[in-house]
């Protein structure tokens, strides 16, 4: 991992400085257990990857971190405070220190790219128009879309929309950036750009990043720390390299994308042969 020396020092000096931490989190939705004792830490200034098969609650974890959902048991600590014990105003204050990149960008469809990026600034500050303009153009330049400022979200490609959303997520200079499946449905060039941007945001701005994804190869190139979720809890954690060397069958199945292993490909069903050969009444 080629981090700049100053940031390396900062990282090691604050190795236990968890910005976001989940302790023994239990969460159930409609009778289905999503988390059954989840433990997770995202340290300041690092990129933490949360991986796992679809439906393991990766997005739910982000919702717990942002206080949109609350754990049934255990605690989710954000900036050192249990988010469940905060008032609505305090949750909003915590959220204003975070940025989130949604899977589809989630840009506001009735305003143009410039206004989308300016939106949080206008809502939370009284900065003069000239300052807002410079701020927004700076962030759009960082994602390479200064020239697209006047376009409407419907005129953007998937990759462009995600980059605009990233500009919007960083416009208030957040301490933590949450990425929800940032690589889904992107062409190789857009994916490369997003990967580079995530790395850049972390490296240049020192933003703590939590990336939720199932794209193992992509995450391995940028993550400092990885967590693999399965069955409602963390089944493995470590650097991507450590995970790749793991002896665990679950980890190996996920890292190699194999159909065979503890995570079943087939949804539970009655016996195949008897269902095909049996009478229709059965």
């Amino acid at each position, binding site marked *: 991992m080629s981090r700049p020396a100053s940031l390396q020092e900062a990282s090691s000096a604050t190795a236990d400085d968890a910005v976001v931490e989940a302790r023994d989190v239990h969460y159930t939705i409609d009778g289905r257990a999503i988390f059954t004792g989840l433990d997770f830490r995202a340290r300041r200034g690092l990129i933490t990857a949360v991986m796992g098969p679809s439906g393991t609650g990766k997005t739910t974890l982000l919702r717990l971190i942002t206080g949109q959902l609350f754990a049934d048991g255990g605690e989710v600590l954000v900036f050192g405070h249990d988010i469940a014990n905060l008032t609505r105003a305090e949750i909003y204050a915590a959220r204003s220190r975070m940025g989130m990149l949604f*899977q589809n960008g989630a*840009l*506001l469809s009735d305003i143009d790219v410039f206004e989308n990026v300016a939106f949080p600034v206008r809502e*939370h500050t009284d900065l003069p128009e000239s300052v807002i303009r410079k701020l927004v153009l700076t962030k759009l330049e960082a994602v390479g879309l200064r020239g697209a400022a006047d376009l409407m979200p419907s005129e953007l490609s998937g990759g462009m929309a995600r980059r605009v959303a990233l500009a919007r997520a960083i416009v208030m200079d957040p301490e933590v950036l949450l990425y929800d499946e940032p690589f889904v449905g992107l062409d190789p060039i857009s994916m490369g750009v997003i990967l580079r941007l995530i790395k850049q945001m972390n490296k240049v701005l020192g933003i703590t990043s939590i990336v939720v994804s199932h794209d193992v190869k992509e995450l391995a190139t940028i993550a400092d720390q990885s967590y693999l979720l399965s069955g409602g809890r963390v089944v493995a954690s470590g650097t991507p390299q450590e995970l790749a060397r793991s002896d665990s069958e679950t980890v190996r199945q996920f890292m190699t994308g194999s159909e065979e292993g503890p995570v079943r490909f087939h949804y539970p069903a009655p016996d195949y042969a008897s269902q095909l050969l049996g009478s229709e009444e059965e």
Partner: protein
Amino acid sequence: MSNGVRDSMVVEGLRKTGVTGIFLGRLLLACVPALGRPRLISAQIYNAGARSLIIIMLSGLFTGMVLGLQGYELLRRFGSEEALGAAAAISLVKELGPVLTALLFAGRAGTALTSEIGLMRATDQLTAMEVMAVDPMRYVAAPRFLGGVIAMPLLAAIYSIVGIFGAQLIGVQQMGVDRGVFWTQMQGAVGLHDVVEGIVKSLVFGAVLSLIAVNEGYQSQPTAEGVALATTRTVVASSVLTLLLDYVLTAAFL
């Protein structure tokens, strides 16, 4: 219908009423800060009001023309065609204006509100606002609700004015009712209380229909089918409630 099905329908009905009640409370609370954002509200008055103008004016014109024809035929039997102006104006200002505007509003602006908010939910726009520490109730729901409440009486007034013009067009221009008598009878018969009744009705319809449209959009399932169902519910609930409330309000004003 089995007892179980009936019970679950009652529970579901109560649950929905409760959810709507809580939503109304949150919406009214959010209206206070939203009033400080006149630009957001005026944009919604434009969306719900100005964009419905053509359909409202066309419907008003034809309703007035039908009133002119039917009213003239009926009044002629009693030899009192001169009362056409009064009859058309009273029916438009007190009943047809507010009620038909509300029904058209439900179909035009109500469905647009529900599907817009539903799609905002389906595409995570509302969640994104929450994560950006911006309350969507304040930014999305309250301005749309207030826009509807303000737009409805304005639309109803325009409906009635164009309707009266339509009745005059048929009664005076085509059927030959004396122009002076037409307007004088109207002036004498329509009192302030009639206008107040029309305004109160359209304000109530505006509040109820906007609440239904915004609430359905907000509570819709974030899928294509969910948004479609929510839009249908908006039209059905709005139409039935408009007619029901019209009866209640008419009875209250008598």
